[in-house]
């Protein structure tokens, strides 16, 4: 039986901005099992980062959590407990959860390290704060961590400052910082977006390696389905503050049900596809400061139904692992077929997968 580490239920978050109230997250459910990787995919502004920031308790001050629960199961003084993180004060979060149990890697390694503190001190700070680890011991562990994340000559790097390192190195440091206190959950917020393509792959592999080695659970945020295919077991597709389709990687890639997921898949370049046939999703995500009536994807949806104008579709289960929020799946839904382009692509992907599995 799989152990559930994190369970988010009906999370809703609003931001107070000068342009009015923005409903960034509108009822998100999310499950994370021990040792597994869940990806959250979506365009910028879909609420994926906000969701994880709420889990970390680092929402900016103008954000309020309207409803929801975040149940986190962890070991506390030798006993396994499950607590609602939303009941924790900021201070409690920092003391008991952040770094110690849930750690995070951010998007831009160029800006996410403190420029005035040496690498070594930034890595040991977590240990020193949470466990009052002796400086020598913490430093020894930091050197090991640097080795783990693939930094050569770790001893002398400890004394370096962020500006002396390249972007890829910095992201490795950030990963080392995140791992310093042996967390159970690692949240990666687009950890490769700001890096060169060649380094992207290396960092992805590094995170996977580490996951294998220490059995940590990972939440992976990205807008890149290619990354998802590589790292994740479960996928949540987010649109306009809601999860519109969730399932295993196979579910999402081979049997996508939501027109938005179709769009994302079609927009993903692969070797066989002519660039002419790369289709982008028309239009832009909705303005979240307005009340959303009906399906927020309606105006951009080729497969829109009349009912989408009025009622937002709930998640409708397709299988035990797979569900999507589209009226197409309703018992009343009309007959439809996948875009031919996508059909062809899925067939190709399946063949490739077979090929790799065989070879």
């Amino acid at each position, binding site marked *: 039986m799989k152990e559930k580490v994190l369970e988010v239920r009906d999370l809703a978050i609003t931001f107070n901005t000068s342009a009015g109230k923005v409903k960034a997250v509108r009822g998100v459910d999310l499950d994370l099992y021990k040792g597994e990787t869940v990806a959250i995919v979506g365009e910028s502004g879909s609420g994926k980062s906000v969701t994880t920031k709420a889990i970390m308790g680092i929402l900016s001050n103008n954000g309020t959590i309207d409803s929801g629960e975040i149940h986190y199961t962890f070991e506390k003084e030798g006993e396994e407990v499950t607590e609602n993180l939303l009941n924790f004060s900021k201070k409690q979060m920092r003391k008991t959860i952040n770094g110690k149990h849930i750690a*995070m890697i*951010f998007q831009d390694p160029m*800006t996410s390290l403190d420029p005035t503190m040496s690498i070594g001190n930034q890595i040991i700070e977590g240990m020193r704060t949470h466990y009052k680890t002796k400086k020598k011991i913490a430093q020894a562990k930091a050197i090991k961590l640097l080795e783990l994340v693939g930094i050569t000559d770790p001893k002398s790097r400890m004394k370096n400052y962020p*500006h002396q390192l390249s972007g890829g190195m910095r992201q490795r440091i950030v990963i080392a910082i995140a791992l*310093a206190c042996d967390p159970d959950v690692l949240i990666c917020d687009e950890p490769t977006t700001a890096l060169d393509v060649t380094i992207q792959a290396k960092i992805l592999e590094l995170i996977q390696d580490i996951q294998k080695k220490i059995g940590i659970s990972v939440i992976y945020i990205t807008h890149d389905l290619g990354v998802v295919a590589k790292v994740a077991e479960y996928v949540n597709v987010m649109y306009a503050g809601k999860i519109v389709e969730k399932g295993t990687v196979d579910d999402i890639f081979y049997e996508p049900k939501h027109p938005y997921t179709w769009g994302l898949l079609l927009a993903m370049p692969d070797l066989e596809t002519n660039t002419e046939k790369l289709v982008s999703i028309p239009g832009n995500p909705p303005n979240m400061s307005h009340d959303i009536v009906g399906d927020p994807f309606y105006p951009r949806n080729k497969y829109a139904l009349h009912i989408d104008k009025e009622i937002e579709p709930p998640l409708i289960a397709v299988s035990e692992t797979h569900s999507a929020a589209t009226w197409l799946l309703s018992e009343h839904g009309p007959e439809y077929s996948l875009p031919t382009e996508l059909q062809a692509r899925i067939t190709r992907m399946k063949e490739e997968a077979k090929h790799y599995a065989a070879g």
Partner: protein
Amino acid sequence: MKKYILKRIGMSVATLLVIVLVLFILMQLLPGSPFNDERLSIEQQQVLMSKYGLDDSVPVQFFRYVKNMLTGDFGKSYTISKNTDVSLLLQNRLPTSLLLGGLSILLGSVAGLLLGVAAALKHNSLLDSMATFFSVIGVSIPSYVFALGLSYLFGFQLSWLPMLYNADDGLRAFALPAVALSMTVMATVARFTRTEMIEVLNSDYMQLVESKGVSGIQLIFKHALRNASISIITILGPLVVSLMTGSLVVEKIFSIPGIGQLMVQAIQSNDYNVILALAFVYSALYIFVMLAVDILYGVLDPRIRLAKEGANG
């Protein structure tokens, strides 16, 4: 770092030399040289000229002037205190002014930092609005207006504190002028600290620090304020200038026997040697502060401290 410091020192020396050159030229231009006295015959003037080395070539004169300035030989006062060495006038007054300036900077920076940090931490709260309001007022209103108000209210109407300076009062005598001068410092520091702190607190690396589980005092002082302070110390230079200007007026209002009051007297009585000497002293002080700020900046910011030798910067 070495190169950085050497470069700053070089720049400071160059600036000081330029100032001395300007003062030297001014000295030649200014009317009222004692040797222009019509009662003296040409021969007598010649004797005087050679006695004071005025018949030497201009570069020689200039270098002598530089040497005099650096050794504190500023010549004699014409009008304020006839034939007294200017250096003697300064000797008594400089410490008083430095004490007043130091007190004001200390008072203003501490209060300003606290106010600025508090406002940034409680961004968009009532406290923040109030801090912003007070700092706009403090920045806008010249220190001598504060001085006049304080002097009238606490000195004259309420008689709580001395209205005029008296050395016997000790630090009490500095209370009103130091508070008046520190208002601008406080407001400027608070304003700047608030902006810098808000920027730092919203930065990506603070999110990482928070997600490490660091909070409270450690978060504010070890990370936020440390990063903000790099920019905050750069306002020290402009502050010293405004303090100098302010001290001229405030020393006059409270009749404090400092160099500010001396400057005002010298200006009003055209005592050129005193003016030139003070111009030199003020410039030297300012250049010294700027140099200290630059070096401190380099020490605080590892990007400068660890810059590769030979690299530009």
